[in-house]
């Protein structure tokens, strides 16, 4: 019956092509939406995920990394005294404006970290090193910011919040979900130029905690919550997820991706369903003949489902090939397509399920064919 299914498909190449093109487009759309969604999710918590710490202490009711409010630096001492805390580092995230050489201006996120420990600094450098920011009004900018800020060169000066900062390094792979370029400075520089944003001196934004070796960060989180007032405390995974959830779901962005994915899935069902249905209708007499000569309904299902699965598999391969070759295009327009193995397997399953559902109406129709009809 598998042979018959394949031969029926090949026998009508136009119909086969239409079905495969339908599945292909559906797969491309689903892969693009899923890949972009995962890319955005990854991007939204990129900085959190790359900072080597166990616990994040933030202002009360902080919704996400990008919009956290300042807290008093005195909280650092309180946190440090909590049992189970090995180290507590300060990290500033402030919003500012940079002036471009062409006269334009851009909003930037200023990340101020301790260059001695490097915690909170850039994790991959194209030029320079993360500790180069110490000792003056120095900055490291990411190469991805060149789209907004123009060509960046080590040694040149850029004005940020009215202060001239010398670029001492170019980092790689640091992107904010807000699309604002990230400017790394030393903690003291960030505190100095971001004073207006921070609302005065002796303010920080995050406290990054490493727990004593062997302790469960969750236990230490509870301890900090009990000991320090007016702050929120999260494990790294919790804060990463909170930030992701904010951008993807609280803003409605993720729902948009999901709706498009569901639409692509439904469009795929309709296209494949129509082609399989018309094929089934054309072969209804043949199915009747098969039943007359002794085939059972399950043999007929096999034929129809084999056809659906062949459509699904070929459409999936074609769809993934197109997605692979257009990956560079997405990167050029500033989006990242992330499709890990589990996402590919899920997409294949979704495609198979899509074609399986598409075949259902045809199966129902074929099931009702009376073998006696062959004599009519």
């Amino acid at each position, binding site marked *: *019956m*598998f*042979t*018959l299914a394949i*031969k*029926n498909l*090949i*026998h009508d190449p136009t119909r086969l092509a239409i079905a495969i093109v339908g599945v292909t487009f559906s797969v491309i759309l689903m892969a693009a939406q899923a890949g972009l969604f995962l890319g955005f999710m990854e991007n939204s918590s990129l900085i959190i995920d790359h900072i080597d710490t166990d616990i994040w202490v933030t202002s009360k009711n902080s919704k996400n990394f990008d919009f956290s409010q300042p807290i008093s630096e005195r909280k650092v001492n309180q946190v440090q005294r909590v049992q189970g805390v090995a180290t507590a580092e300060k990290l500033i995230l402030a919003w500012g404006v940079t002036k471009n050489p062409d006269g334009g201006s851009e909003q930037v996120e200023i990340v101020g970290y301790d260059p001695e420990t490097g915690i909170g600094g850039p994790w991959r450098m194209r030029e320079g090193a993360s500790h180069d920011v110490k000792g003056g009004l120095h900055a490291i900018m990411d190469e991805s910011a060149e789209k907004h800020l123009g060509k960046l060169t080590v040694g040149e000066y850029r004005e940020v919040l009215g202060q001239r900062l010398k670029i001492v390094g170019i980092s790689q792979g640091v992107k904010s979900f807000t699309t604002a370029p990230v400017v790394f400075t030393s903690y003291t520089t960030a505190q100095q130029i971001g004073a207006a944003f921070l609302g005065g001196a002796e303010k920080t934004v995050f406290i990054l905690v490493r727990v004593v070796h062997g302790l469960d960060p969750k236990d230490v989180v509870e301890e900090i919550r009990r000991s320090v007032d007016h702050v929120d405390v999260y494990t790294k995974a919790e804060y990463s997820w909170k930030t992701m959830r904010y951008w993807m779901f609280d803003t409605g962005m993720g729902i948009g991706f999901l709706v498009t994915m569901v639409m692509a899935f439904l469009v795929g069902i309709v296209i494949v369903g129509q082609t399989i249905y018309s094929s089934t209708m054309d072969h209804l*007499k*043949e199915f009747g*003949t*098969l*039943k*007359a*000569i*002794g*085939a*059972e309904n*399950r*043999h007929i299902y*096999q034929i129809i489902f084999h056809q659906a699965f062949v459509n699904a598999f070929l459409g999936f391969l074609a769809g993934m090939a197109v997605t692979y070759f257009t990956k560079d295009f997405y990167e050029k327009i500033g989006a990242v397509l992330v499709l890990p193995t589990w996402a590919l397997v899920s997409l294949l399953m979704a495609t198979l399920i899509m074609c399986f559902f598409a075949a259902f109406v045809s199966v129902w129709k074929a099931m009702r064919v*009376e*073998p*006696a009809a*062959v*004599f*009519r």
Partner: protein
Amino acid sequence: MGHEGFALSTMIAVFRGTEKKATANGEMERMSRHTIQAVHKLSTQADLADVTASQVVMHVENLRKQYRDGKVEVTAVDSVSLTLHAREMVAVVGPSGSGKTTLLSMMGFLLTPTSGTIRLMGQRVDTTCEAALPRLRREHIGFIFQAFNLLGALTAVENVLIPLRLKDITGRDARREAEGLLERVGLGHRKQFLPRDLSGGERQRVAIARALAGSPSLVLADEPTANLDSKSGHEVIELLREVANEGRRAVVLVTHDTRNLTIVDRVIHLEDGRIVQ
């Protein structure tokens, strides 16, 4: 088919497993004990060469089929009794609407009679449950249709292989039998042709080869020459005669063509669902 054999045999193995599971699940338990025994006994009669001319292939008794057409009850076949012997070729004739096709459908287990009995190779089979009918058909009946009903995407030999696959006959044995049957009907040289590349007469000969695949005990032919020119039609009827003469089976032929009647052993005239002669 080459490597297709593997896929088909795998599929059939799966079918077998499914069938066993279905049995275990109680699906077959719905069949009456009598029916299961009858079908099993029939299915295991592998060597039909034992059937001699005197042996009865099929016996139908007081066969009746009624339909409801709106508020009107229509009797398509009424109290038909007949016996088919091995090596016998019987023609069923009659005007349109006389019940020929309905009778053929009941003898081929495509329709269930309203009343009456059908015995195949001595076993009563009219009480067979719906689920077991396909098996009965593929084990014992060969069909030849007016419009040939070949599967358009398959070559001649693949068409002949279909009933063998359904009977779980696979691999070289199936291939050998299918090719032998095509040789038998004079189409050995056209076995790789698609139906669309064959003439009407050739298509019907492929259909005959398909009907003979797996050595059924009864071949039912519905107007097999109606779509053929007289020469091809004559060749097909001659072929069916040879098939009947092989001593392994009976052939029932529904026809309007009176030229076909000279070659058959017996003619049954139907009118208004009854045998009139």
